[in-house]
């Protein structure tokens, strides 16, 4: 069973990473195209307008292939983790439902933009359309992040998690039917079966008619501060990462002799550098939220097997470098000394202790990944300061052309790695749970065992669609095919 879970988790991780490539191109593409379209008016320079069109084409191709990889990931999710359907059907329903609206805004307006690019003479119409597409793509990303954030911080479950894990915080108002969720949890633990077995029809319906609906307020996921900070942090990271890829392509064009691309390239790099500063603020806020709502994850990130200070975080968060953060020793002690308030035949204290030891196993990995991430982020931040300087002193790009190109390459590689590591820390840090403090991966897995055919279809499909996306972008944009 453990192998199946590990494989399924690995498969989901690969799927999400591959899908993320097209997401970054779409979200960053529409945002950068908007920037260039605005600059084309401010600077009265048509080359920005032409560049905005090329970037929108990138974005549209990536959107089309993102829809393919998204479908594969979506089906993979439902087929491999069918217990996840309960999350889609409750806390995730409205975020996903409104995400559809965002997706439709993107899809509908993209068609209109292709039709109208050469017909709409007024640049303000272009700006309005690209703004709406950028809004749609960012909103779409934001709403998916809301669901992922709920899995990290199950907002609206009140003190439920605290009842099982005494070190846990309160997760917002109590919108959840505590008795029903505990009953489901009891069934899952005592019978050792996945959620999907009891989710179909009568058993679940009988439980609901006995205990009432599971969720009283379907907008619960929208009220979480943790979620909105995650949204900001993730969207800025996505724009920086995708934007750095566009900057890399523009640098190649510049090195190949397209002199007129230099000014837009510098503007883009300045934009990314400003976003790096904004990301510093979001990163700090994200850290504060993790300390507050995911104590075990923070202990993993800071390497706190034993409670102790983390001078930088202590100083920036509490103004005290000697502030002592709770480590796993504290969580274990609190759990051992607690007395369960739950009226259940199951020994939840034993389960809570077992989970802590499982989480502790992830500490070395999460700590290493997080340390590497922060180091690279700091280096990328320093490079972005150079980009700011070169915007003020553009001649450096002419005098030190090669050096500047290497810096763009480094920046792009660094921010891409930082984003990938950040996502890994986010996902591994909530282990051993899939929904923090509530559900384990083995409770959400499908009845049908993961098999090589499924793995081959999902991974093969993603690699195929991604490869064709890259080839299409190359053929259509690099070689300027007449058909797009």
């Amino acid at each position, binding site marked *: 069973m453990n192998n199946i879970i590990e494989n399924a988790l690995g498969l989901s991780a690969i799927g999400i990473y591959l899908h993320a490539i097209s997401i970054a191109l779409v979200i960053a593409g529409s945002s950068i195209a908007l920037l260039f379209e605005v600059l084309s008016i401010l600077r009265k320079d048509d080359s920005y307008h032409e560049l905005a069109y090329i970037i929108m084409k990138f974005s549209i191709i990536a959107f089309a292939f993102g829809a393919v990889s998204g*479908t594969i990931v979506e089906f993979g999710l439902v087929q491999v983790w069918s217990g996840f359907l309960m999350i889609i*059907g409750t806390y995730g329903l409205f975020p996903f439902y409104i995400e559809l609206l965002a997706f439709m805004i993107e899809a509908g307006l993209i068609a209109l933009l292709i039709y109208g690019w050469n017909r709409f003479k007024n640049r303000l119409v272009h700006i309005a359309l690209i703004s709406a597409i950028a809004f749609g793509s960012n909103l779409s990303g934001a709403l998916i992040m809301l669901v992922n954030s709920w899995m990290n911080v199950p907002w609206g479950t009140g003190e439920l998690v605290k009842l099982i894990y005494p070190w846990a915080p309160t997760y917002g108002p109590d919108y959840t039917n505590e008795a029903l969720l505990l009953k489901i949890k009891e069934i899952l633990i005592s019978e050792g079966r996945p959620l999907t077995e009891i989710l179909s*029809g009568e058993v*679940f319906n009988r439980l609901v008619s006995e205990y009432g609906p599971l969720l009283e307020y379907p907008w619960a996921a929208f009220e979480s501060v943790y979620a909105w900070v995650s949204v900001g942090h993730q969207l800025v990271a996505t724009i920086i990462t995708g934007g750095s890829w566009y900057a890399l392509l523009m640098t190649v064009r510049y090195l190949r002799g397209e002199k007129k691309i230099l000014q837009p390239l510098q503007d883009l790099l300045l934009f990314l550098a400003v976003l790096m500063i904004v990301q510093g603020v979001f990163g700090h806020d994200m850290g504060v939220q993790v300390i507050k709502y995911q104590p075990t994850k923070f202990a993993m990130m800071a390497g706190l097997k034993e409670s102790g200070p983390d001078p930088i975080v202590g100083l920036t968060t509490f103004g005290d470098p000697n502030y002592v953060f709770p480590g796993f020793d504290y969580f274990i002690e609190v759990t051992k000394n607690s007395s369960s308030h739950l009226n259940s035949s199951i020994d939840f204290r034993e389960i809570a202790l077992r989970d802590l030891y499982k989480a502790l196993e992830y500490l070395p990995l999460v700590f290493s990944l997080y340390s590497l991430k922060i180091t690279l982020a700091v280096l990328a931040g320093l490079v972005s300061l150079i980009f700011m300087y070169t915007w003020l002193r553009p001649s450096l790009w002419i005098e030190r052309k090669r050096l500047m190109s290497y810096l763009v390459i480094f920046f792009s590689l660094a921010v891409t790695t930082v984003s990938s590591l950040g996502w890994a820390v986010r996902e591994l840090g909530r282990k051993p749970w899939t929904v923090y403090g509530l559900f384990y991966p083995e409770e959400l897995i499908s009845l049908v065992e993961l098999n090589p055919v499924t793995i081959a279809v999902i991974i093969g499909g993603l690699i195929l*669609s991604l490869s064709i996306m890259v080839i299409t972008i190359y053929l259509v944009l690099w070689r300027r095919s007449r058909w797009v």
Partner: protein
Amino acid sequence: MGIEFFIWITAIPLLIHLIFVHINLGTSVSSFIAKYVFGDVSLARKLATVMVSGEFVSGTLGTVLTVILAGIWTPLMNVAANILYIPLLIALIGIVLRLPSIGGYWYTLDRGGSLNFLFGISMILGGFLIPFGFRYIFAFINYPMGLKTLNPLEGDIFEALMNPLFPPLYVLTLGSVLMVGFAVSIPIIKRSGYWGALGRSFLLYALLATLLFLIGNIWFIDLLSKFSGFLFSNMLSPTNPSFYTFLIMWISMVMLLGMIVIELKGILRVNNLFYFIVPIIAMLSMEFSYGYSRFPYFVVTGNSGIDAATFLNVSIAVGFSEVGGVFLALMSMVVVSIVGVYYLIVRKYFEE
């Protein structure tokens, strides 16, 4: 909130989705034939434009449907994800093959070579694998073969593949896809100034596809009478609305056959609009009849069934205005997409 509301907010996007799925699957075959049977690349490109645009709308609506099914009909999706694991995987293979192949086919269309042929075959094969997977769901809800118990969920994923209703349903689907695809291609061929042997051939293809649709219907109805008595008797009962849509299906099918024969015989030229409207009405009324006649059940088990409410997500306390509001906004965007696509096809590619 009544169960009917949830059924309608699923049915409306499903029916729109089906219209565009039929158009894009069918025109992909037409485009391939135009190039490889008649060697007409320009016509193949025009038909491929219709296909790509149709794919765009049907793809986005497919995503809408997946979320509606997962969020509103959660228990049903849970059954399908587990018991119909293999068909869903087949559909996924179809999507994986189909969508990238469309890009490849489009790009290599005027460059010739065996690569375009391979992309075309993969595009068509992938396209028809998608309904091959999804039609198992429809066969399953008419006759839940493979399901042992719902309580707790248990089933046999291999037995589910043996559903006797699947073969006629798939033949019916092939017929309706080709019928719509060829019929919709005819006005495009006419408007493009092509006629003669090519036009007559497409009329003949449309005729054969309509006959396949007819045979599929008869075969399916015959098996419904044996395996899904409730659905069968509802469809033939004048007190049930599906009886009338069923009648409309037969009328439009006969009308389409008549139109094609009249045009083939050269008696008169049929207005282009009819080639769009009549096959789509036949397809929609077929889908509506087979879908609506299972109400109030969602899964029919012979002469009885499992109530639709069993498969409704009841774990959330949700208001009509909330679900309805988002749904209306969604459908508005669907209209914007369709209008955008219409302008793309008709204005950008056909009138310039």
